[in-house]
């Protein structure tokens, strides 16, 4: 018999985890879902975000979330730079598929190895007042370490959603995702819009990295655990919509949390990937898909 409070706690923890997963995935929803750029190096940028937060936090005791937000413009510029290389080397030549994939795969690997060379394989963590205490409602625990990233993540999603829907450049990004050719016929330049959008997608990695190192200690190679998770959520959510992505993230979060509560944490990584494989096989349009 499964005890009720254990199950409820597992579901709550899963929801919080799912909220955080949404922050990790939103960048890929933009780059892969909207721009058709298969950025499998996204976890490497998230790791970079975590380590930037770690360096600044351990030297100057600044709040990690603040660091993530302040560093986002730098990540934005880096993202624009990466897109520029990608555009000139692959997209313009029409060779984006296999060579472009290999390019991002190389970036992922180089990022991981470079971090290992600099920081070693030790687990690093940050200090903040909200790491440790929990809120309690009856028998349900809300650890602040999970709750704060959850809220920040939802806030970031909301800001992005408003930005995409309301601003000129945001609508241009949606237009690129819907029909690149039509945009070109309107005399707009898709690659300029894509550059900005890709910059934004990398900027979210700065915040997501800061959230990650709040939730758990980080070492360079855990980034690759997120590849399957990110793409699973992105595909589950139907690739382009934020609400769909959030629902997918919650689903994966809850299933993972229940798995690790009742079967042990060593099984949790397989869940997301199993989900990904099954979704790809039977429902490639996503749970809310057309």
């Amino acid at each position, binding site marked *: 018999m499964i005890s009720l409070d254990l199950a409820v706690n597992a579901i709550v923890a899963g929801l919080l985890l799912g909220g955080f997963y949404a922050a990790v995935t939103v960048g890929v929803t933009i780059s892969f879902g909207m721009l058709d750029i298969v950025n*499998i190096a996204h976890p490497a940028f998230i790791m970079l975000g975590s380590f930037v937060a770690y360096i600044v936090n351990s030297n100057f005791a600044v709040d990690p979330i603040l660091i993530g937000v302040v560093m986002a413009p730098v990540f934005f510029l880096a993202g624009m730079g990466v897109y520029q290389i990608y555009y000139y080397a*692959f997209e313009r*030549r029409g060779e984006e*598929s296999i060579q472009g994939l290999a390019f991002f*795969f190389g970036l992922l690997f180089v990022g991981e190895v470079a971090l290992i060379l600099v920081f070693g394989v030790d687990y690093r963590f940050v200090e903040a007042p909200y790491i440790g205490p929990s809120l309690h409602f009856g028998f349900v625990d809300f650890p602040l370490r999970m709750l704060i990233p959850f809220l920040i993540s939802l806030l970031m999603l909301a800001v992005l959603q408003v930005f995409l829907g309301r601003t000129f450049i945001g609508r241009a990004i949606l237009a690129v995702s819907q029909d690149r050719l039509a945009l070109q016929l309107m005399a707009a330049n898709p690659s300029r819009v894509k550059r900005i959008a890709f910059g934004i997608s990398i900027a979210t990695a700065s915040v997501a990295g800061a959230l990650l190192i709040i939730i758990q200690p980080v070492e360079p190679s855990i980034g690759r*655990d997120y*590849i399957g998770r990110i793409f699973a959520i992105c595909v589950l959510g139907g690739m382009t919509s934020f609400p769909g992505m959030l629902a997918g993230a919650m689903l994966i979060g809850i299933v993972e949390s229940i798995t690790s509560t009742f079967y042990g944490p060593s099984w949790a990584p397989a869940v997301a990937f199993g989900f990904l*494989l099954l979704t790809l096989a039977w429902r490639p349009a996503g749970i809310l898909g057309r």
Partner: protein
Amino acid sequence: MMHGNRSETPLPHRGKGVIPRGSEMGTAKFWIGSVLVGVVFLVLTRWLITNEYYFFAGYQVLQFIVLATAWNILGGYTGYTNFGTGAFFAVGAYSAVVLHKLTSLPVPVMMLIGGVMSGIIGFGMGYLTLRLKGVFFAIATLALAIVAQTLIVNWDYVGGARGVYVIRPQHAPISGSYIQYLYSLMLALTWVSVAIARTIERSQLGLGFNAIRDDELAAEAAGVPTLRLKLIATTLSGALMGMSGAPLPYYVTYLDPASSFNLSYAVNSVAMPMIGGMTSWIGPIVGAVLLGTIQQLATVTISSALNLLIVGVLLIVFVIIAPNGIVGLVQSRWRARIR
């Protein structure tokens, strides 16, 4: 589509580049030549080299040739990127561990069984995802690697996360040390996989693969059975990777999930054909010998983390400046001279 020089169709120029296509002489030369090279290589290394280290290093380079060639059968010929080399390789290795615990089969039989296991996984993988866009296949292979690793980590019989020790038999079945024996097996497997790759390249099958790579929709419309061909490619490619993994437990004598599923196998098997050139069987060999040797030298002289950085950086640089690899560069030189 992806192999540069889009003004020309890829098939004719490839034939002109390396060996005249379809000429019987070329084919006969290849078979005789490759067997001769293999035998001479085996005999020379066995008689002349006394330092065991060279067999260790040589085994690694040969293993990379097999992995790169196997990857290229799917990635280079049909254009589907597989990032799960580590999974196929490790499934071969862990099959051997299980067989080692249960039976006392000779290593070549273990290689065959490991190959069958990985081939089955390649088939299942392809069956689930190959009807989708190529990108999804690539992501699914990344996912497969983690699922397989999780299963092994939770499987205590093969050591779980702690890993497992495998004790080598005291004597090799043929003369020489056990490492020399494994080295000879890997040399044979290298020959087999290169021969398979070259045979495919020159057969109807290879034409079908190339059609899929250049335009899958057009190929389908022209009556190429694309799904069946892709399944053949994933199965063959996975099986060869599994076969190259099967002797690993005896080679390292200690096997754990973190090292056998290492992402570096995937990076290497992607980087080697990309750097060497993906359109012909020579490309992966060139890439594997080059990168494998560089890594051996870097591991001995500098550090093993740095050599992985070298591979990653070379991969990025090559896909940007030379998307057709070294073989592609040489071929375009060649054509320029002929004109």
